[in-house]
């Protein structure tokens, strides 16, 4: 059984068919790429997978459980976390707190415990901080823990968003254009980081990317979308040599 099993997924906005008949299987531990020209519907797929949009038809199964049309927060609890193309951090909070918010559902004490500062507050907060620092250190963000998230440099903000997503202990991590706006050096670092987190956190990754170097460098399998439909699907090397794909990317 695949970790993610998407069958005949489709969505319409008014008369516009943004995604149509998408089928996708991602196995446990895979690093999977979703590529395609601008406006092909890639982010829309992410939005359906995370419950921000409700699909018009089709089903999404995660680890054998039907999560189609479930609410975003419940889908996260089921095991999907994501990042955004236009970074969405909690800008007015510290780097550390951003990750601690990601840990919210893994550690628990009541609102009253927090208000009255009962012993459980102190012990749980300590554990949360330790765990958050552990995640931050993977990205070398541990030194910036007290900075406001919005004051981090752009590339670091992208990494913090990944760290926050990882804090929710997902089975499947969705990365929406993680290399957008990075220079070649930063992109190379990012490739190493992605490889590292897959190993350290044992997480399956689905990513949207335009940078072909990154895609061909780390993705094992690819799906190419064009005008909301699957153009090609399969092993990275095969897909990238598919004449249809070359046509869509380079024009005729």
């Amino acid at each position, binding site marked *: 059984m695949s970790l993610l099993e998407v069958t005949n997924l489709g969505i319409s906005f008014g008369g516009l068919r943004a995604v149509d008949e998408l089928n996708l299987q991602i196995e446990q531990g895979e690093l999977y790429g979703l590529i395609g020209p601008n406006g092909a519907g890639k982010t829309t797929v992410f939005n359906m997978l995370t419950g*921000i949009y409700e699909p018009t038809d089709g089903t999404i199964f995660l680890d054998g459980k039907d999560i189609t049309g479930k609410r975003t927060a419940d889908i996260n609890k089921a095991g999907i976390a994501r990042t*955004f193309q236009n970074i969405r951090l909690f800008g007015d909070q510290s780097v550390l707190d951003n990750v601690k918010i990601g840990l919210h559902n893994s550690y628990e004490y009541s609102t009253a415990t927090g208000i009255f500062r009962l012993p459980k507050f102190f012990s749980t907060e300590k554990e949360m901080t330790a765990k958050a620092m552990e995640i931050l250190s993977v990205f070398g963000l541990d030194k910036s823990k007290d900075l406001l998230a919005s004051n981090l440099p752009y590339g670091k903000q992208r990494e913090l968003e990944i760290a926050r997503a990882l804090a929710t202990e997902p089975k499947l991590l969705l990365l929406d254009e993680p290399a957008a706006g990075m220079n070649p050096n930063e992109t190379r670092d990012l490739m190493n980081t992605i490889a590292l987190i897959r190993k350290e956190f044992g997480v399956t990754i689905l990513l949207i990317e335009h940078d072909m170097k990154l895609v061909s460098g780390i993705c094992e399998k690819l799906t190419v979308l064009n005008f909301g439909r699957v153009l090609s699907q399969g092993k990275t090397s095969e897909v990238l040599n598919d004449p249809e794909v070359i046509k869509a990317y380079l024009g005729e």
Partner: protein
Amino acid sequence: MGFLTYLINGLSLGSVYAIIALGYTMVYGIAKMLNFAHGDVIMIGSYLVFIGMSNIGGEQTGVMQVVKVVVCLAVSMIICAILGMVIEKVAYKPLRKATNLAVLITAIGVSYFLQNIALLIFGSNAVSFTSIISWQGISLAGGALKITGNAIVTIIVCIIIMVALMLFVQHTKPGQAMRAVSEDRDAAVLMGINVNATISLTFIIGSGLAAIAGALLCSSYPALTPYTGSMPGIKAFTAAVFGGIGSIPGALIGGLLLGIIEILAKAYISSQLADAIVFAVLIIVLLVKPTGILGKQIKEKV
């Protein structure tokens, strides 16, 4: 027959609300701010008409009376329009790029300012506003249904203003500029539209109309104090939200509905609870349709 009388009174009050609501809705649509001081511009307009009417050459009859009313109204409109423009330039324009909340508080400051200026000049005692409409109205069905001149004129004036404004917004260049700025201010700038002038124009029109609304309001409810504009202002604002803030037909529908609900609630349920009922209806409408009757739904892009 009682019901019809109430309905017409409600339409008349609703027409006043609709004219005031226009001021709120246009400013909100174009400058994206709640102009809390709008109600107080109405009060200033009413005082101006009051001064004119009581100081210009004694009792008039017939045509001369109409001329006098028109002159007083016109002067009041011009002064209010200038006042509206100055308020925008001095108090709101510097804050255009600041948070909405800052502009809101400044508008509240302007509201206090206008109230206290009026308090200094006119004192806190109510003055009795003489109706600008001396026509007694008509009596139908053998006297069973009386419609006051105030009600008829108010409703007609409201219709004229609405039609004129719609034509203005749809078919003139400044009107199109207003629609463009309300749709997307940044894009409007790129298209060479003078946003500052457009916002000024909006305040000028809204405040000028406030002068008419004040005169009509006080013709039906003659006790004029520095706080006269406050509650009708809040209610008209409610009417604007009710109809879908930013929409001119919405202001008309919201204003009329609010006026009718208020008068009917006063007549049939409880005069003391009328305000509570009006606000309760607003809440219900917004819960069913979160952006008001004619409002547009805006979704955040992810």
